[in-house]
């Protein structure tokens, strides 16, 4: 069973979200996602300043096998993308929750409340396995 840290928020599309005290959210892909994708070889992260809608495809993570979209968990503006991933995408495989892909300033701070908690995300994984 893949790891699901209790202190994070999640999406059905397998992103994890960490909500900072300043309201800024940090986004990555879950342990389950990296395991399903396999060895990552390329990450195309969004430009700083890009305005995203909730659920918008905004980044691409590619493994040896296939390309997969990253969907923005909430609407907002991209503050920063993780530049170190350009040369070391495998960091996501090694440490999925310690390796973020982008930081967002949500358009509406309350939107993060609609995200899944760890227990609900674990249920998503159980349902997908069946």
């Amino acid at each position, binding site marked *: 069973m893949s790891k699901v840290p209790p202190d994070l928020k999640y999406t059905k599309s397998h992103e994890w979200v960490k909500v900072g005290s300043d309201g800024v959210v940090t986004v990555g892909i879950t342990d389950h996602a990296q395991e399903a994708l396999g060895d990552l*070889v390329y990450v195309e992260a969004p430009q700083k300043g890009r305005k995203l809608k909730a659920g918008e495809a905004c980044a691409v993570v590619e493994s040896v*096998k296939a390309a997969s979209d990253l969907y923005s968990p909430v609407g907002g503006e991209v503050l920063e993308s993780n530049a170190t991933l350009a040369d070391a995408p495998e960091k996501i495989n090694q440490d999925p929750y310690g390796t973020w892909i982008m930081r967002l300033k949500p358009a509406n701070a309350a939107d993060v409340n609609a995200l899944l908690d760890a227990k609900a995300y674990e249920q998503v994984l159980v349902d997908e396995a069946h």
Partner: protein
Amino acid sequence: MGKRTPLYDTHLAAGARLVDFGGWDMPVNYGSQIEEHHAVRRDAGMFDVSHMTVLDLEGSRVRDFLRKLLANDVSKLHEPGKALYSCMLNEQAGIIDDLIVYFLRDDWFRMVVNAATHDKDLDWIARQAQPFGVKPAERDLAMIAVQGPNAREKVASLLSVSLRDRALALKPFTAVSGEGFFVARTGYTGEDGFEIMLPPNQAALFWQRLVSQGVKPCGLGARDTLRLEAAMNLYGADMDESTTPLESGLNWTVAWEPADRDFIGRKALESQRDAGPRRKFVGLLLQDKGVLRGHQKVIADGAGEGEITSGSFSPTLERSIALARVPVAAGDTVQVDIRGRLCKAQIVKPPFVRNGKVLVK
């Protein structure tokens, strides 16, 4: 639920991630596809390829039949155990499948065809074989491909004394058999090695013994990146019934001589050869960051457009490579449309890697 090979439980126990491949539940990897890839390039890895179809063709006119059925010519095969790679064409010279055929006896050849094309191949072969009095019989055999610079030695240490010396003495593209085993010095990775057919009930034990010799289990994921680096075509991706061998980099597999050998598809293929094919099959090396994938559009300045037939990240080159069908007039560099982003790629002569060595710059 898909079909299962005799090694299905072994794969599950080893933590394999299984995927559907041509109706079979097959391991795509056992953890890291890249590590599996490197194991084959640097040491020894093995693949369960029991899903592939083994057909025995027997009859006094079997050689005549195969000279009609295949674009390559089995007349080249004189020594028992000698193998030949060939395309099987339809009348329009479209590729029905690619295969390996072994000469075993004047009245007995063995053929290995793809799993995903099993039904249509058997239909076609049975239909063409009938006038020759040849009956194809499918063999229920497991097949394990052991590949890599140390593969042959590791396999040999597990064979019976009588089989061991004969296996080690095999030249490339030849096979020996004994005690229910059929050992061929063939493969689909660009490395040396053996492909071993064996009784299904012995497969799991032999696999475990290979593991204990340090042979790493590898999934179809690594098999795909290895064969791509070696520029070995994948049926259904790099070629199908809409393409001919001349458009698939397989000119070398067509035996034009003797000119009076009337193989199926010959007329259509000759017309294309005489007119000059409009498309050529090339290797691509991505210059920018990103990953080339099948079906991405290739733009050749002034020459038109083409398409990537298979592409991936190359673990050996640590950059993306692809095989592509492009207009004949395409120059040295092209652009590839990667999800709306135009990326520069260099046209190179495949293969990219053979026997552990990088062959392109």
